[in-house]
């Protein structure tokens, strides 16, 4: 549900920045076409210069989002407006910069700047995709709860598991406890991103750690043990354990998915921002070079 009191970044102020971007692309195109027959279209003509300067202005404007985002008392528009403008103007750069370069590429520093620009823009596209797509995924995954409530519930479930395990035979008890102990929630950023479950469990026969992905190994073991159990107390405990581990399995899935999606929402900025820095450096070189070798 997107109630009408909310506005997505794309629709912000009735597509104000989409309109602005289309306008600047159109103006740039006219400028590009207007390059006379005396000189072929190029970054070095008067029109080329204007386009280059305009493109650079846009890059600086886009990069300054990083600063505006952190100027929290700033009254220069809402950040949402900035983001909306950022997206549309950033996209328009794709064409405007190409008009400036008159679609010429080669193995030189100029093209490096151009390629970096493309890289920033395309990483931005991916970022926009994550911003539009993943919030809903998170919301559905969380069904009203939050990461903290899941972690708390995990704590409670683990306590109950420990309590039930104490009525099981030693083998099973150790197996259960080792499943708890060797559960790996997230690991570093990379496994988080992959959503990979690295949980293990210690096999009681040979004391080796074996994978316990999705808690499946322990669930299987408990399910197998239930019909074999002779002792009524133990059988009750095993049944309880099965329920508890099923819940645990579910909780782990939710938690891990949350971590994964949140990582998706962040990871692209780890490309977008450094690429922006590299782009700015390449641009400076490009500008110096064209002045020196003019």
């Amino acid at each position, binding site marked *: *549900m997107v109630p009408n*009191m909310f506005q997505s970044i794309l629709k912000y102020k009735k597509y104000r920045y989409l309109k602005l971007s289309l306008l600047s692309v159109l103006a740039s195109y006219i400028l590009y076409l207007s390059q006379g027959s005396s000189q072929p279209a190029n970054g070095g003509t008067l029109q080329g210069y204007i386009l280059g300067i305009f493109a650079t202005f846009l890059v600086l404007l886009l990069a300054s989002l990083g600063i505006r985002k952190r100027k*929290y008392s*700033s009254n220069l528009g*809402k950040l949402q407006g900035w983001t909306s403008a950022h997206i549309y103007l950033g996209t328009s750069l794709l064409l405007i910069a190409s008009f400036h370069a008159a679609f010429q590429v080669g193995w030189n520093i100029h093209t490096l700047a151009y390629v970096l620009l493309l890289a920033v823009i395309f990483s931005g596209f991916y970022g926009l995709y994550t911003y539009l797509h993943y919030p*809903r995924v998170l919301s559905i995954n*969380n069904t009203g709860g939050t990461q903290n409530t899941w972690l708390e519930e995990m*704590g409670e479930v683990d306590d109950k598991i*420990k309590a039930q395990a104490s009525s099981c035979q030693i083998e099973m008890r150790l197996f259960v406890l080792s499943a708890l102990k060797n559960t790996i929630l997230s690991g570093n950023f990379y496994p988080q991103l992959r959503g990979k479950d690295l949980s293990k469990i210690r096999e009681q026969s040979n004391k080796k750690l074996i994978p316990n992905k999705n808690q499946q190994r322990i669930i299987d073991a408990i399910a197998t043990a239930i019909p074999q159990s002779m002792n009524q107390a133990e059988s009750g405990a095993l049944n309880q354990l099965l329920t508890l581990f099923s819940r645990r399995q579910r909780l782990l899935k939710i938690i891990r998915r949350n971590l994964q999606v949140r990582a998706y929402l962040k990871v692209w900025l780890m490309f977008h921002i450094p690429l922006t820095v590299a782009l700015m450096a390449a641009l400076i070189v490009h500008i110096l070079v064209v002045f020196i070798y003019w």
Partner: protein
Amino acid sequence: MQDGRYKVVIIGSGPAGLSAAGRAAFYDNKSPDSQKTHLLLESFSSPAKTIYQYQKGKHVMDEPGFLALRSPMSFVAGKRENVLDNWQQGINKNQINIQFNSEVVKISGEYPQFVIQLKNGSSIQSENIVLSIGLQGNPRKLGLENDAESNFVRYTLEDPDEFEDKTVVVIGAGDAAIENALGLARNNKVHIVNRRNEFNRAKEGNLNAVLTAINNKSNQFYCQYNTNVKAVNLPDENNENGSIVLDTPEGDLEIACDCIIARLGAIAPRRFVESCGVKFPNDKPTSIPDLDNNYQSNVKGLYIIGALGGYPLIKQAMNQGYEVIEFINGNEVKPADHPLLEQQFKLLPYAMDAQKVLDLYQQRVPMFKRMNALAFRELIIESNIVIALDAEAYQETSITQKTALTSGFDKLTNLIRSGDYIFKQGNYSNSFYTIVEGSVELIKDGNKKFTLKAGQFFGEMSLLSGRPRQASAIASDDCILIETPRKIMAKLMNSNDEVADGINRVFIMRALQTAFNPKLPPKEMNALAGTIELVEFKAKQVIYNQKEIGNELYLIRSGTVSLSKGTEGNKLVTYQLQSGDLVGQMALMGNSTRQHTAEAAVRVEALKINKQQFLKLVQSNPSQIKVLQAQLSQKMKKSNSIGSVVEASKTIKFLLDEGLGEATNALIINENLCVNCDNCETACAETHGGISRLDRETGASFDGLHVPISCRHCEQPHCMKDCPADAIHRAESGEVFIDDSCIGCGNCETNCVYDVIKMSYTLPKKPGLFSWMFLGLGNGPGEDLDAKINPKDKELGKKAVKCDACMDQKGGPACVRACPTGAAIRISPNDFVNLVDGT
């Protein structure tokens, strides 16, 4: 002492009692015989228990700044330890006759032969009694053998860090118990004993923290649920082998421990005070005994001062101690606040003593005539006196005002120009105005006018409903007004039934006027208003059920009512109504079967109007029926449109369940847009001294809407309820904020039901944005959890911090402005319908 009888016995050695005893000792020391005619009784083992129990190192404030201290005991703002040291020295120097461990359990007899009975059985006689036992009450004991307060059995905990590597058993499930247990758990093994199977009395923050601690097995933190205490075994002379025996569901359990801390709440002192014959005006918990100008209660010779008498700050309490002894010794003293009164009246065109003006004003306003003089005096001191002058006089007088203000006056008569607005329709100011001279014009919607004369009052609507002003007010020439802050008025209404009735009566008349526009003669209107009942519903209480036959309608005075259809479990909320709205009028205007279930979403006050009364109102002005019918059909349309979308009505129900019905300005987040960047929190911290006042992730969600933990600027803020320093205010534009006079007592933190107030030190200033970006200084924008507190700030202690809706930020709330995706918005209940309308 004469014939074994004291002249005055002072009970309770808080600031009030100490000051009184100090003054009484002064007279004793002056008299030629060395007899002590005064005695100070204290139930605790050292003086001023309330202050003794403040957190170690707490900065004690000497608010209100404008009041001078008049006491033989010294008191300046400073560390708790210094304050207590000074008082100890004062006790020695003045030779105060103080007796510790002497809890008074009964007072009998009468002036001048009171008999005071102590807990240990002995009794003492006295001519006069000064009761200054404060409001903290005495801790509820375990009710077992060996439960007396000792090093082993404690009922308070000053400083959890005093314990290390000990085993401590904490008993209780309230916030105090949990906070103590968590504090101790840092360095000790802790058992917490809960009589029930849940911690349902605790605040959410504490609840989460205690559950986390219980669940975290690396802690030595254990909880015994469904458990009672069976016995306490005191330790031996070497302080060893103490233990506690618990009655658990699994049988008896003995735990060897170093200390038992029982936090079972306190027994409020009211019952005891009543047993002394002192009358309270009503049953409300906040009610204050009626006192005369000299703090004397209805029991002759029994005086009540300090917090118990309704004065919640140390300096006030101390001044009263001095004054009460002066009076008992037959000296007429002008109270310490007399100069304040003079300043209040200074710019008025009278040449009269301030006390005379005071008496005159009290006579002039019917509602105030019956108040006791002391209460009226306090009312005036806490109020502003406002005079409206024509342009010329305004010019002249404001020069006088300026010079006076620069030469040391703090609070003078307020000046306004006649013809200027006192307040404007739609503003949130909620002080209450009484006209003592001249007249005031009220203007609603730009055209409806109404004139009020001297002796009348206005502003009761906002006071009672917490809503913005319903009309604008303009003062005439030379009009003089008493502007009373909401808090003082609320206190007065709580303690004085006549004032409460007077205001309620006028409220009812004006509310009926607004809702029904009747054309009844004033006399009949007044009589009708007198028959209308004021009813109160608790949150979640049903007002009426669907399908019932209804014979009355309700006019909401404060709070929010939800209308729903269907049965429990399958209930669809279709509408919500606020103060000024009518509920259930359909039953009187056509079909008498209730079409909805009406339920109070938060605490609701309403006028109950029955069929007869309703008919009388509308028949006097039949043209009004059309207006009412139009309102009703408007409401029906909306309600049916929401009811037809299950999702929408569920969302409204969710928002109401989250308490947003009493919000005026709440942050909500659309989960389908939120990218979890926490920029909103960072923005909040960056614009508010490095401390975020919102917790984005915590809080409930439903169908993509998330209500984070953040202040909602309630209509009737719970947090304001008992702030001793009166530091919480509402700005004209509606924001509820805390000012610098906060003394850090933590009452608001406890009172806010939404858990949005934090106690925090002032954080050091951070390096600027560019120093961080380019030089890597500091931790960057946002709250720095590892910030090092400056020693100076540590000394000043923690203060309450909460959202102020960025009232000082030009662009409005920083959280909303900083959200890159537009997920965060702020809404009021009026927006609910819009919010769900887009589905």
